[in-house]
């Protein structure tokens, strides 16, 4: 970690030329050609915080969603190479999600604008100089007067404050707009408690969780924090675990992690939530006093009414009521895009009521946390009206791409066309930037100063970790400079010469407000820690408002023409569409469907049979708003009358990876300007078969385990008794699962021991660690953050859609997802298991390699020597776990177009065409830790080495360390009674131990 230091303009920028020194950067392919003359370019001035070949870590704050996680930016030779979670940060505590890590590919995106686009001297749109662009903005500002609007997706923080002041000074409008803003939660909180805010949720404390369409593990609110809490509550701790029920028309990633998935008639969830509240209220005596006022309302929602409204079996409804009423604290959440139907506010209100009567408000639901929220879609709709009426002459879009995220049918584009000057600050030529007159690209958050206040008591800082990739000007400085040029009130409002200075002033005030004597020391400490973190403030006490019981009427129905309800959902990779230009996210399969690079339509198997469509067939969906085409994916985890589709693709512009890829599900939606939010689940669609096919680019071969016991589970009751997988299996009344007799087992053991003796030679006879890993399946959610971490750490290239069709993805670590049930009326469920090189003791891949490119190291790794590999691929054939990946093409050359190559980790060889590669247990980190220990003359300690996947995992499911040390965390984890090896019977003796998933079976 390092402080900000005085920097000469050249030193950090130097990375572009210092590549040669570092032995890094450009696709450094295996080969010994050193014929060409290389140059050594020294730094002009030594920067205190950069030592060649040693990583420097800067703390910052992630801006990929509103959660505001703290990040550590790992830099080498003054370029960012990886984003990791900040362990000190209260929100994410060292973890990070896939989207957050992919921020790096936003920084180095090959389609990043190199400079502003605007009218040049002859009036054509072209690249112009930053000064010219700011001049043009100033002129437009001067002409527009107060007919100015700014649409900003920036979260709370100094910049947002400055923007508000700035817009205020012009007299214009500021719309803080984000695509997924959870407006119904706030509107409902306003109604139920009279509080206009999104509360914070403590999943970790809950013993029973019910989610009404809130995909809190992937996109809803603060996913990493939610997942941390969820792992705490729902991960098996040796005695018990929370039960989680997911309610929604489609089993999302959050849904597949639930113990039970309920799919009531879309729109009727209000009944279910109120029914549970009624059950709680009528069985518990401890409900808040003012809840009594709700009794008449709630009493209407008995089991029969709820069962009738929702279409769920009465037995299931009763069970849910009983379970929820029985435990405390519990937690119900709602307000996700998946259930953002016209009655969404009612649903959220019902859930607020439920939490209130169950006593969760103040414990697992905390108001007063200041969870960031914008003005909502309603404000944007108002702006649209104003634009349409010709009241706006200048509009600036900042961190917002409404032309993609707002349905076409809303007429936003037409209204926008009436604005005289349209300005975008997008870093990329996105859908909205494409129609703007002036694009003044902002700096990437990793290149500039800023801060963020994602919640009360958390003050995150952002600092430039490197010289900008392109010499652009941060939007904050653009605003300041434009203000100076315009003069008047605008200029008078701002005195700071730069935004950096402004920010420091703000922070100096913050320091003083907290009684820090030395503001400079405070600033430096804040930089080092990534911000200032106060203990979470006490929750704000709330009481039921008078309007609490005013529901908008019973269950909503989703009207319109068409036999299917259309359910778009936010993709956990593409999010609101910003992920669509980042190969890491495009190639990281959707955690549920395992589809990459495409959009798809989820169809229930029964519906597919009725429609007579198969996977890959292109369907045309038509709603009142428009029509789109996409391939079918037959998914048993979606209601039969629902067609689900991910949001975020179908960009008209947005760079080479995003443009024209997939379809934009929002195109089918109608916008209801008056609702204050965008009703996503409100459209019926007609289905038309096109007769055309387009293969679904999924990374999965077969979605079923076929009785192979790959993901083991055990019921929580048996797990609590400390049974092993086999014991639990037998305790459930199954026959023993024996492959070998006792005698055979003895023989195998004896042979194994004799082989162990015989191989003790050379380095193999020395005392060495034995690296191993334990993965707790009761914590793993399948979120795939580890996958992106692995891509980032190990320079894994993406292969693109065409090669995914041929199953050639390179993900060293993949999340396998297997469906269970879903046939013959059984409930569908899914299990996930991270599959990576198992570093087997008796690795089948090793003896078959003719050149020892695959071999066993003395410290228990399954080594893979890229430069020795000739590419016979025998090892991959013989790998029972299929975790070896082959460079069929020169992927490394194709996948990292400039400047994307700057993200490459110089510690890891970039693999050439024709060689095999695979998970190395991050051997570069092991070797670095060993060298560090050697320099300090000390032995390695447990925790010195942490693999990239384990580091990123928000659930803390992965443990890594020395298996020979009985005290190490991984040894302890591997000795857990739930431990098992995948494909144990084939006696390859993997170094990865999985801990069986624990489920709430029928007994719970």
């Amino acid at each position, binding site marked *: 970690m390092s402080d900000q230091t005085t920097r000469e303009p050249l030193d950090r920028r130097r990375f572009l030329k210092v590549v040669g020194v570092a032995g890094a950067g450009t696709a450094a392919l295996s080969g010994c050609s050193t014929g060409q003359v290389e140059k050594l370019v020294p730094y002009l001035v030594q920067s205190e915080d950069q030592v060649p070949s040693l990583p420097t870590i800067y703390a910052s704050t992630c801006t990929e969603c509103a959660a505001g996680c703290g990040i550590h930016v790992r830099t080498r030779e003054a370029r960012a190479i990886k984003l990791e979670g900040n362990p000190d940060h209260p929100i994410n505590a060292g973890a990070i999600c896939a989207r957050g890590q992919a921020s790096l590919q936003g920084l180095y995106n090959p389609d990043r604008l190199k400079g502003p686009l605007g009218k040049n001297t002859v009036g054509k749109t072209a690249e112009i100089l930053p000064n010219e662009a700011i001049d043009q903005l100033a002129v437009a500002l001067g002409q527009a007067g107060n007919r100015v609007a700014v649409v900003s997706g920036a979260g709370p923080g100094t910049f947002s404050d400055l923007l508000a002041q700035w817009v205020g000074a012009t007299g214009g409008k500021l719309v803080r707009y984000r695509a997924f803003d959870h407006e119904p939660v706030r509107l409902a909180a306003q109604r139920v408690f009279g509080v206009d805010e999104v509360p914070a949720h403590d999943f970790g404390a809950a013993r029973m969780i019910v989610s009404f369409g809130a995909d809190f593990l992937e996109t809803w609110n603060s996913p990493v924090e939610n997942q941390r809490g969820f792992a705490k509550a729902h991960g098996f701790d040796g005695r018990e675990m929370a039960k989680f029920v997911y309610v929604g028309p489609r089993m999302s990633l959050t849904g597949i992690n639930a113990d039970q998935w309920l799919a009531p008639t879309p729109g009727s969830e209000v009944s279910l939530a109120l029914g549970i509240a009624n059950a709680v209220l009528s069985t518990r005596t401890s409900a808040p006093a003012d809840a009594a006022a709700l009794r008449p309302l709630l009493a209407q929602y008995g089991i029969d009414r709820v069962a009738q409204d929702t279409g769920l079996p009465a037995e299931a409804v009763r069970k849910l009521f009983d379970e929820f009423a029985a435990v405390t604290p519990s937690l119900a959440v709602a307000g996700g895009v998946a259930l953002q139907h016209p009655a969404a506010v009612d649903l959220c209100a019902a859930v607020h009521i439920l939490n209130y009567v169950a006593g969760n408000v103040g414990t697992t639901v905390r108001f007063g946390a200041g969870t960031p929220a914008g003005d909502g879609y309603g404000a944007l709709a108002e702006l649209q009206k104003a634009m349409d009426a010709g009241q706006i002459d200048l509009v600036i879009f900042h961190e917002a791409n409404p032309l993609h995220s707002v349905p076409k049918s809303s007429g936003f584009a037409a209204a926008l066309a009436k604005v005289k000057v349209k300005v975008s600050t997008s870093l990329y030529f996105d859908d909205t930037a494409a129609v703007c007159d002036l694009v003044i690209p902002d700096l990437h958050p990793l290149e500039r100063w800023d801060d963020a206040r994602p919640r009360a008591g958390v003050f995150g800082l952002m600092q430039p970790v490197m010289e900008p990739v392109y010499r652009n000007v941060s939007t904050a400085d653009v605003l300041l400079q434009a203000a100076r040029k315009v003069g008047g009130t605008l200029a008078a409002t701002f005195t700071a010469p730069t935004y950096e200075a402004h920010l420091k002033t703000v922070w100096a005030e913050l320091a003083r407000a907290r009684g820090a004597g030395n503001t400079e020391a405070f600033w430096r400490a804040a930089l080092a820690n990534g911000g200032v973190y106060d203990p979470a403030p006490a929750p704000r006490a709330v009481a039921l408002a008078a309007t609490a019981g005013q529901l908008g009427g019973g269950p909503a129905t989703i009207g319109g023409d068409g036999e299917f309800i259309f359910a778009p959902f936010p993709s956990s990779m593409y999010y609101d569409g910003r992920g669509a230009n980042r190969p890491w996210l495009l190639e990281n399969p959707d955690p549920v469907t395992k589809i990459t690079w495409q959009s798809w339509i989820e169809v229930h198997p029964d519906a597919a049979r009725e429609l007579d469509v198969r996977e890959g067939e292109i369907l045309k969906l038509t709603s009142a708003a428009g029509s789109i085409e996409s391939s079918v994916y037959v998914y048993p985890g979606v209601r039969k009358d629902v067609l689900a589709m991910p949001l975020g693709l179908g960009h008209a512009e947005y760079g080479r990876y995003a443009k024209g890829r997939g379809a934009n599900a929002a195109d089918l939606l109608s916008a209801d300007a008056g609702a204050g939010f965008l009703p996503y689940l409100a459209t019926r669609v007609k289905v038309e078969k096109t007769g055309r096919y387009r293969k679904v680019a999924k990374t999965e071969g077969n979605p079923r385990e076929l009785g192979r016991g790959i993901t083991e589970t055990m019921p929580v009751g048996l797990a609590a008794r400390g049974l092993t997988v086999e014991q639990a299996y037998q305790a459930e009344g199954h026959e023993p699962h024996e492959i070998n007799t006792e005698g055979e087992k003895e023989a195998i053991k004896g042979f194994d021991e004799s082989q162990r003796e015989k191989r003790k030679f050379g380095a193999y006879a020395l005392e060495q660690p034995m690296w191993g890993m334990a993965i707790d399946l009761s914590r793993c959610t399948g979120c795939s953050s580890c996958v992106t971490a692995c891509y980032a750490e190990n320079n894994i290239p993406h292969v693109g859609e065409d090669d995914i069709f*041929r199953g050639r993805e390179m993900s060293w670590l993949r999340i396998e997802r297997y469906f269970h049930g879903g046939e013959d009326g059984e409930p569908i469920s899914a299990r996930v298991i991270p599959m990576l090189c198992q570093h087997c003791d008796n690795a089948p891949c090793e003896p078959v390699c003719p*050149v020892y490119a695959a*071999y066993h190291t003395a410290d228990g790794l399954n080594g893979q020597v890229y430069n020795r590999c000739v590419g016979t691929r025998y090892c991959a054939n013989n790998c029972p776990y*299929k975790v070896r990946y082959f460079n069929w093409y020169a992927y490394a050359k194709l996948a990292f177009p400039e400047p994307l190559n700057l993200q490459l980790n110089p510690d890891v060889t970039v693999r050439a065409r*024709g*060689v095999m590669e695979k998970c190395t247990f991050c051997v570069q980190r092991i070797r670095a830790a060993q060298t560090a220990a050697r320099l300090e003359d000390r032995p390695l300690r447990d925790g010195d080495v942490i693999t990239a996947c384990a580091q990123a995992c928000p659930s803390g499911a992965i443990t890594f360390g020395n298996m020979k040390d009985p005290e190490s965390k991984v040894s302890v984890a591997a000795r857990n009674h739930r431990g098992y090896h995948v494909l144990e019977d084939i006696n390859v003796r993997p170094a990865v131990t999985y801990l069986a998933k624990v489920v709430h079976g029928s007994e719970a």
Partner: protein
Amino acid sequence: MTATLHDHPHPNMTHADVTRDVVATLQTPSRGYYLALFSAIGLFLVGAVTFLALLKDGLGLAGYTPPVFWSVYITTFVFWVGIGHAGTLISAILFLFRSPWRTAVYRSTEAMTVFAVMTAGLFPIIHIGRQWIFYWLLPYPNQRWLWPNFKSPLIWDVFAISTYLTVSTTFLVVGLVPDIAAVRDKMTGWRKKLYSALSIGWTGADSQWRHYSRGYLYLAALATPLVLSVHSVVSWDFAMSIIPGWHGTIFAPYFVAGAIYSGIGMVLTLVIPLRKVLKIEHMITEYHFDNLAKLTLLTGSILFYAYAMEYFVGWYSSNIFEQTTFWRRAFGPQWWSGWTMIICNAFVSQLLWFKKIRTNLTSLFVISIFINIGMWFERYVIITSSLANDFLPFAWGQMNPTWADWGILVGSFGWFGMYFLLFARTFPVVAIQEIKEMIPMPRRKKGAH
């Protein structure tokens, strides 16, 4: 011993006829020959261009779909190695068994062997990811102090194939020397000079025959276990792995039988037109084809048994992985390839129980084509269908060949055909000296000895 040889039917010719007729095959060839040769060269060029494309862009051009990391190239490799087995079987094993009918056909089958192994030998190079460093598979001293891994079946393969190529080439060349001398003595001009050089001073003197005959016998004795071992080693490329469908103890005999079966199939395909083109019908007769067909029937029946056992063991093992593999081999997405193999090999060969079919050259030729197709598919099925569904269902995948796969396959036929045709025009395809050995020399007194 010689007397028994003479009891068997042999061409009703004198030694001089043999020399004349065989030398006649080396005269100016027909237009048909040139057509065949240039088509072979054309096919070879297709393969060469495909290979260049693979070198330039990578193996991704072929249809590999993980987990199918080996497919058409290894299939074709095993196919050609298998073809290479008939030659040495006929020339070495039948030599040791003193089987008289081998004499007329062994030279062409031996040439086929050498060229088939030459073809096969290209495939390990074509198939690896970094073709330019294929020599790393050889144990040569290098500054990096590195040696290959002798535990790898691929290294066994390298040694088995190169030993086999060396020994079978030696065997062919040794057998050719007296014949080249015979041709030399009938030639004039530059061709005489050429054959003189190639005959390395052969005169047929007793001092030469004395060592030659012994040496030839020992070579045959050495080549015999080699024939059986080479395809066993190739089969261990598969059987030594843990892939269900590969990991079988019957693989070595199963592969050897299949190799001989396919080899004789190819012999039939080649010799039936060749004897006509070269006008040596009176030397290679129905008698020879009948015997070849019987051998085909034998090996075909062994294959039939092996297929049945594979399925039986797959079922009887109670091993879920084995069971799935064989179920999907018959009824999975590529069921057609599995059935092609069973029909072409196990069933078609059973037609040879009938003498009429055995002695009818047209039907034999058609059957031989079926055998060639069936045996290529056998390897394709064993390799791709076993790889396609192994342990973790999530990682399954089906491969479909692309133009790059077909280009190399077609090119391999061109490469093989090119050499075979050139050989047939340049060297005696019928062993002059061995035929002569079978034909008693004229005597003044009848009934001696």
